[in-house]
């Protein structure tokens, strides 16, 4: 900046000439200079104030932001973080509908070795082989001395075993923390839970992943870090599950059956209260899948869900229900049941001759194949297929188990009239007991479609009507009659108005055709029949009842008594009030419209 002189000669001399005081010029210049200085200083001060203000605003904003963050942060449950926690080891618990633990995690340790740090490999191998029978001393010694620097010895140790290993005092033996999946109820609900095993393994932790059942199907939910503290609440009731397993096991032994399955389902919500398949296994020590023999005979096989079989006469209620729904018949309409009925080269026969004519109700009560085939003829193959589709028989069930999509019903390749007739009494279409349970639930609950689920539903699901309430009431009446006067009298339980239908299906030979002396005995029913709360399906594989002079295999003698015992035991536990069926007094006629 050029400094202007205070007394510039160019102005002073003319001023003197004019007789003015040159000092005024100097004062004027001083004033201007001071003004300029003042403006500069003010600008600088203002800039500093602005900067300071910004700094304060920033500081307070930072403090405020931090406070907001702290206030809005989710409280997290403190847990012991494993060092190197890249591997997600935790897994949420699974409980039954009342909060009783079905699966939980337990901290344990895995044993590994750094063979190069071993001081006395020979002795260590010897002692370890003594502690753990599955280890071989010689092989272990060879592995310890072949120069490797790391090896796993055991995946799970009990505290006692861990102490014993500590006592060897070998610095080359090390422990890694592990989360172990524990099923405290042992074999109970084994098929539902499936089992778990280790995924990615590290020294400090290992992933626990589901291998079957609901553990596998909902693996992501169970391992979701945000929902670890929230147990997965299933719809199962541990007490009911235990009682059903006990009764079914006893029935299976008494009847010399090869296997058995049972489902107890809430008729309105589709919640599975119990699902049992026998023989079962211990999910804490899940056996390997069999490499030979029928996969269907393995304990791992869930008969209730994966057992896709021809179901037999339990299917007869569907053509009857459909014919009622379509208005083709009413329960009293007489159906021609003269046998044998010929369809092309195919003949339909009855177990016995039930007379020339029977009402629709009696076709169900006596379980007439010919009557059902006639009803199917009246309905026609296309409409029958549509109805079974609606009942869920043409698709795998949507239950939350990894095995569900594989349990696809077996349908005839072409739905001919002959197929239509055989399907009407349960042959030619194979489905699982789970399909049967949800279809029966829809029939008896007033006509609403039911999706089976393993998760507790706290709110009732949206309901889609598939048959009318009137048809449902007529079906309930017929199913009740089967128990009071038909083939399933052994299933009756005083006070609980059991209703249902028996079904005895000859088993198919692998080479084609049917076995003469091997059957699947099924019972599908519900209770109490005036307002069904629970649907029960019982299925026995190759049962024989030998108390009489001849071996009896029909479901009325095998599955029906098991059904009766199951209901007798579980109904009080489910809190169902027994209703004593009163004799209608004289002069009052019950009317149904």
């Amino acid at each position, binding site marked *: 900046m050029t400094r202007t002189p205070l007394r510039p000669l160019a102005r002073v001399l003319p001023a003197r000439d004019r007789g003015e005081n040159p000092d005024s010029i100097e004062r004027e210049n001083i004033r201007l200079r001071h003004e300029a200085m003042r403006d500069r200083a003010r600008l600088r001060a203002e800039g500093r104030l602005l900067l300071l203000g910004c700094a304060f605003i920033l500081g307070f904003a930072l403090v405020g932001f931090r406070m907001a963050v702290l206030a809005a942060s989710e409280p997290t449950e403190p847990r*012991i*973080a494993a060092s190197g926690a890249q591997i997600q080891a935790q897994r949420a618990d699974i409980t039954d509908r009342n909060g009783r633990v079905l699966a*939980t995690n337990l901290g344990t340790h895995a044993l590994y070795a750094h063979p190069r740090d071993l001081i006395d490999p020979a002795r260590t191998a010897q002692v370890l082989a003594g502690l753990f029978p599955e280890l071989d001393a010689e092989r272990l010694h060879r592995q310890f001395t072949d120069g490797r620097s790391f090896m796993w010895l055991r995946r799970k140790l009990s505290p006692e075993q861990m102490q014993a290993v500590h006592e060897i005092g070998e610095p080359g033996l090390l422990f890694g923390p592990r989360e172990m999946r*524990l099923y*405290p*109820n042992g074999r109970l609900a084994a098929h539902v839970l499936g089992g778990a095993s280790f995924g990615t393994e590290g020294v400090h932790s290992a992933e626990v992943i589901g291998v079957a059942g609901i553990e596998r199907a909902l693996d992501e939910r169970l391992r979701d870090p945000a929902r670890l503290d929230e147990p997965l609440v299933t719809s199962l009731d541990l007490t009911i599950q235990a009682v059903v397993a006990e009764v079914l096991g006893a029935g299976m032994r008494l009847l010399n059956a090869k296997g058995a399955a049972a489902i107890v389902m809430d008729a309105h919500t589709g919640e599975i209260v119990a699902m049992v398949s026998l023989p079962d296994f211990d999910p804490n020590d899940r056996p390997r899948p069999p490499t030979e023999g029928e996969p269907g005979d393995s304990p791992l096989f869930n008969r209730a869900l994966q057992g896709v079989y021809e179901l037999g006469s339990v299917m007869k209620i569907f053509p009857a229900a459909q014919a009622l729904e379509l208005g083709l018949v009413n329960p009293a309409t007489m159906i021609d049941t003269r046998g044998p009925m010929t369809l092309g080269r195919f003949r339909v026969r009855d177990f016995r001759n039930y007379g020339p004519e029977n009402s629709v109700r009696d076709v169900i009560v006596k379980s007439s194949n010919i009557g059902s085939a006639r009803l199917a003829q009246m309905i026609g193959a296309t409409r029958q297929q549509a109805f079974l589709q609606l009942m869920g028989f043409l698709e795998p069930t949507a239950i939350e188990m990894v095995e569900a999509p594989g349990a696809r019903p077996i349908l005839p390749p072409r739905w001919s009239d002959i197929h239509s007739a055989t399907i009407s009494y349960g042959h030619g279409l194979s489905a699982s007991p789970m399909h049967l349970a949800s279809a029966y639930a829809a029939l008896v609950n007033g006509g609403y479609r039911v999706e089976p689920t393993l998760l507790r539903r706290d709110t009732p699901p949206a309901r889609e009507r598939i048959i009318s309430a009137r048809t449902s009431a007529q079906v309930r009446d017929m199913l009740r009659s089967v128990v009071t006067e038909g083939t399933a009298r052994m299933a009756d339980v005083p006070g609980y108005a059991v209703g249902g239908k028996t079904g005895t299906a000859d088993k198919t030979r692998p080479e084609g055709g049917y076995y003469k002396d091997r059957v699947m005995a099924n019972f599908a029913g519900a209770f109490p029949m005036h307002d069904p709360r629970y649907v029960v399906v019982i299925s026995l594989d190759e049962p024989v009842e030998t108390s009489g002079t001849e071996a009896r295999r029909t479901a009325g003698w095998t599955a029906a008594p098991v059904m009766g015992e199951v209901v007798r035991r579980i109904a*009080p536990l489910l809190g169902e009030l027994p209703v004593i069926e009163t004799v209608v007094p004289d002069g009052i006629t019950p009317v149904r419209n």
Partner: protein
Amino acid sequence: MRSVFFLFSALAVMALAFWAYRENYATQNAAREAARLTREIGRLNEAIAVQRAEWAWLNRPDRLSELVEANFDRLGLMPMTANQFARIHDLPMPLPPDPAAGLAEEIDAVVELAAEAEEAL
């Protein structure tokens, strides 16, 4: 005046420095304490999980039914049946309380009140 101001500022700075120093250590202590508590809660949670697992294990239906059978002589527990249900109005009513017992107390109270009233007069 100016020197007093400077002295005062210097003292204030020293006091603030001392305060900040103490806060710093208090914060570190609190953080350590929080970490310790977190670890302890984690450990206790794990212990609770073990206890819950043990509870479930000891209450598994298999074991309970075995125990019921083993102690049948003493407990005589049987499966629940439909006969054990009853409606409330089918149950006998509880006996009405003895009216004389309540009456005696009331009489005593009235007598006492009368006595007090007399004294007051």
